[in-house]
């Protein structure tokens, strides 16, 4: 039985790396006594896979993991069992059973929606944002395993709107590419925007970023992984 599980990573655990979070969830699965299936071979591993990782320092209410179970279990039971053994700040929101033959979450998911709260006291950025997005190319330097390379991130920004303002903060929503094909870290995008707009910010404390959900394209529509629930 294959289950897709939606979970939240809240403020008090936002500094855990993806690797640490994976380990934490593996151990929670053991504590909860979930009948996770194991791989065969010399060093058996639990069959648990994850959606695109959340960068350290961000919070989320739309994280996903994909768990293969060795025996049937009611999704509700899974959620209850897990929530009673998780550290504070990590919460299972929902689980659904999906078709075992579906590809991995990592390969299916293509977009993620973020809420970005930008600390920009007294600044009017609407105009700058419009000009920023009007550029045909937005080139940033990405550093990866093969060293630094230039990337045009404009095609990875599917939507970037100001949705509200409150005391010294601008609230934005961004739909960005995420997944194994291409992926854009919202922090890098914001950095690029601030540079474009000539706004000087404390280089590392300029924004609170929260992931709202992740999406995949299926049957002519963008759906969340939970909507893969088998009929």
């Amino acid at each position, binding site marked *: 039985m294959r289950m897709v599980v939606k979970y939240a990573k809240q403020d008090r655990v936002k500094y855990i790396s993806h690797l640490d979070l994976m380990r934490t969830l593996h151990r929670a699965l053991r*504590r909860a006594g979930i009948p996770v299936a194991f791989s065969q071979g010399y060093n058996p591993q639990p069959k648990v896979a994850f959606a695109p990782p959340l960068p350290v320092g961000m919070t989320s209410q739309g994280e996903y993991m994909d768990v293969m179970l060795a025996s049937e279990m009611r999704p509700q039971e899974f959620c209850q069992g897990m929530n009673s053994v998780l*550290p504070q700040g990590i919460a299972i929101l929902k689980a659904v059973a999906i078709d075992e033959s579906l590809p991995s979450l990592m390969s299916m998911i293509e977009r993620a929606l973020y809420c970005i709260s930008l600390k920009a006291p007294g600044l009017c950025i609407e105009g700058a944002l419009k000009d920023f997005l009007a550029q045909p190319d937005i080139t940033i330097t990405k550093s990866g395993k093969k060293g630094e390379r230039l990337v045009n991130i404009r095609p990875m920004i599917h939507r970037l709107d100001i949705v509200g303002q409150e005391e010294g903060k601008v609230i934005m929503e961004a739909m960005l590419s995420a997944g194994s094909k291409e992926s854009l870290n919202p922090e890098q995008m914001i950095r690029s925007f601030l540079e474009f707009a000539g706004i000087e910010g404390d280089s590392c*404390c300029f924004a609170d970023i929260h992931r709202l959900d992740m999406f995949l394209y299926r049957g002519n529509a963008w759906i969340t992984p939970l909507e893969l629930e088998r009929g």
Partner: protein
Amino acid sequence: MDKSVLDEILRQVTKPVRYMGNEYNMVEKDPSKVLIRFAFAFPDVYEVGMSHLGMKILYHLMNEREDTYCERVFAPWTDMEQKMREKGLPLFALESKDPIAEFDFVGFTLQYEMCYTNVINMLDLARIPLRWWEREKNHPFIIAGGPCAYNVEPMADFFDLVVMGDGEEVINELLDVYRQWKMQGGTRQDFLVAAARIPGVYVPHFYDVEYDDDGTVRSVKPNREGIPSVIQKRVVRDLDRAYYPETMIVPYMDIVHDRVMLEVFRGCTRGCRFCQAGIIYRPVRERSVPRLMDLAEKLINNTGYEELSLSSLSTSDYSDLENLVKQLMERFAPQKVSFSLPSLRIDSFSRELIEEMIKVRKAGLTFAPEAGTQRLRDVINKGVTEEDLLNSVRQAFELGWDTVKLYLMIGLPTETQEDLEGIADLARKVKSCYLDVTGGQRAHRLRITVSVASFVPKPFTPFQWVAQDTIERLNQKLDFLKDKLRIKSVEFDWHDPRLSFLEAVFARGDRRLGKVLIKAWEMGCKFDGWAEHFKYHIWLKAFEDAGIDPGFYANRARDREEVLPWSHIDVGVTPSFLWREYQKALRGELTPDCRERCWGCGITRLEGGLCQ
């Protein structure tokens, strides 16, 4: 504390998870509802400190008490420290994030001499006055325990009191006395006087040290009424009945020992003459198989750990090991729990059992012959022969291992050139054993690591009287070995002799070294055990400024009559036994395992234990 300042800092430092707390099984209490707040302080980074079993035991033990909230604090890494100082954030406990300066106790565990500057740095970062005489009514009591607490003299200025021996019982007695004192009201001295009546509690400044003209200690005497002239360490009588946590904090980050630790026994009967742990943790006390099975069950279920280690000083000496491992395998293998047995002697194990165990995971193998020749191994009473070692290595190769690590020491008493050559010979023999077993089949996969440390004479060992080799001499020996060990498939690594030299100074130091520690810390020494932070030239400057010759402590042989700075501490094993062992060492005579017969080490004077 201003949480937004912390939040801002955490975005800017490496491994912020070190400072975050909130791990599964962390104890949460309302600090306003307890009488005693205790900060358990480990003077190294989180991932080192969280691997320490003693902390796990005492943390949960203290938190069993309704009147006490024990929290944790570690040494912040230098980037974090810098940010904290910039933003004016004092050292805080992970659980509540409250400054530890507001606590009742800050209790340091001293595992290693080279953590002393970190203790000082943590006190400073906490804004707690460094020396005991500078602290006032509103300051916490700064206390210490752990192996280095047995000769805590170099740190005597900094601690209000020190606990000798197993902490499980003393800590509750200490907290009870504190509770009474806090409710009645009184001076700091009132509490210390009351605490000093608890057996195993040592208040350094209740003792005066006098020195002779030649710089040696003349006497150590209590300076007030009702204080014992000798402090005897405390021993937990029955480990089965002693407290052991049924749950452990599960860190997010990968710590050094990231697994359930099951302490199978405490103490060691082997009597290696260089080994301090083998003396100070006497007598041997074992946990029974049923008790261990019960604890394993609870700990695995409560933590979700996928690995369990059987810990002790010499796990293969557990009297019912085969049975224990069998039962553990039967019970936990279906759950895919793997086992690690550090300090295992592979020869004492049935081959089927090893084969069974490596099905779950094959960890690296480490052997510790300690010395290169049989003569020298006899001197140090390491009851291992070359044949033992080669048999074990052969078995390991037959079972498919390709990498082994050999631990050895240089600078041991009576060492000659021949003993050094023996180290290289041993590496060569291990290599030919591999080629023999594999028929040269997978020769490219072989890796033998020869890891060499310089011998550090420690207090409370038969070698507590000997002179350490000078750094120059140790470097010559290392150079010789580097040359001799240019062998394909053999890697050579070594511990910095300058660090071993300082370890030797502080291990056998006296109170006069306190001012050296302060000077070194003032000039920026911290994390001295971390190669990237070790600043030897600054240490030398600190000794010079303090007018102290470090060689006096490290490179000087003591005679039998000398009053050692730790002579007022009784660890159970008597100085006369240690001296006898030293003399036997010089004659190359062995003292077999004391399970075979009693050698009269003196530990039976203390309560309980296997020793009758």
